[in-house]
């Protein structure tokens, strides 16, 4: 016979709690968005040069993919915990882990996006006298946008989920509510944190999909 929790019989959402914590919820959502945006933004800043270098030197590609793969395999809680002795329970610790996770997805999507540019197009650009750098930003990158944005979307949705775990190292945005709910055995914050985190993931995903439509007008039909 399972013993119920103290919260058994408790409603899933106490609306009075929600309405009296409106400011906290807004602040947590803002922090969640910030943590995610910084992680994906920094991830892109690191992933781009990494992917370009990996494309230039094939032997480096194996190393970059293996290293980012190892980072990705380490469970989030462990990755955050490894940096706690160095940087404490801080935002820096959280961001190091979050950025680490985005790298595999971003590097892979940038590489496969650039690889997907048809050889004919590349040759035509070269024939028209495009230098490698100009060919990259004027021809190859725009054509790779759909694949790269798909990677950014995946990285963003993943990061929104992982930010909840940073609640355990004193950050967490909406994840802090989930942990508060676990610690005080109180359902409402668990539900509020979970639902808003999923909602944030969907909103961010839809926003990025919209941004892609604006960026690639030629792909619209």
């Amino acid at each position, binding site marked *: 016979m*399972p013993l119920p929790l103290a919260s058994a019989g408790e409603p899933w959402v106490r609306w009075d709690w929600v309405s009296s914590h409106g400011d906290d919820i807004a602040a947590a959502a803002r922090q969640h968005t910030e943590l995610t945006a910084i992680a994906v933004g920094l991830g892109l800043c690191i992933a781009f040069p990494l992917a370009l270098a990996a494309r230039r030197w094939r032997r480096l590609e194996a190393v970059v993919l293996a290293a980012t793969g190892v980072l990705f*395999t380490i*469970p989030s809680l462990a990755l955050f915990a490894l940096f706690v002795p160095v940087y404490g*329970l801080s935002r820096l610790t959280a961001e190091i882990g979050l950025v680490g996770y985005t790298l595999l997805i971003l590097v892979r999507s940038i590489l496969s996006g650039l690889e997907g540019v048809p050889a004919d197009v590349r040759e035509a650009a070269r024939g028209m006298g495009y230098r490698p750098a100009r060919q990259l930003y004027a021809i190859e990158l725009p054509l790779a946008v759909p694949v790269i944005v798909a990677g950014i979307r*995946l990285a963003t949705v993943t990061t929104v989920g992982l930010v909840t775990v940073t609640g355990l190292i004193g950050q967490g945005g909406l994840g802090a509510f989930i942990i508060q709910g*676990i610690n005080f055995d109180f359902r409402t914050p*668990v539900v509020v944190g*979970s639902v808003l985190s*999923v909602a944030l*993931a969907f909103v961010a995903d839809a926003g990025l999909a919209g941004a892609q439509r604006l960026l690639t007008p030629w792909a619209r039909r």
Partner: protein
Amino acid sequence: MSFLSDVVAWFSTASHWQGEAGVPHRLFEHVAMSAAALVAAAAVALPGGIWLGHRGRGGWLVLNLANVGRAVPSLAILALAQQAIGLSGWPGFGARPALIALFALAVPPLVSSAYVGMREVDADVREAAQGMGMTGGQLLRRVELPLALPLVMAGVRTAAVQVVATATLAAVTAWGGLGRFIVDGFAQRDDVQVFAGALLVAVLAMVTELSVAGLQRLVVPAGLRTRATRVKDTARLGVQAA
């Protein structure tokens, strides 16, 4: 350097290797829980995904399941399972919600990889098999399944790594496993224990990844084993972290 020598000292302390709270028992809990959840999820998800893929139905459902599965944080699933089910009862304190949460997390990547693997089988190959007079069952067993295996196994790999990772988080919802060292270390402000636990968890995750990769090499037909497709497959499936 003194921090690292503290970590070494932690690992060489005999009491950390004995009893319910020792490393071997926590490791056993972690592996047993992950394996149970993964096997149960595979038993449901793989036949389901394979069947849907074979019949070419339910693509919309599978796609949405995968997307929603990716958007729901593992911590949220654990916390909700704990609140819905309670902590006590078989098979041990905190184990039931953790098992159910891990099961729920493993299902979407398994279903979608099985489904996508079956759908990616070349239509010409399928038609040729039908032209040779194969029945639906023969087509499924002899043609589609072997060709779908690389993707199916990629899904198993994703799910296995994710389950092991989330089992770490289950320490937050009162269960054991290797995550206990990290979570208790946070509570006691014991950085050495936190770091030692993190190392153990990281090593276990790598070993899991490598073992499933080994299994993948064993079961995937030799003709389908090329590096290029493996990289592409993982990219197409979408990767997942926990």
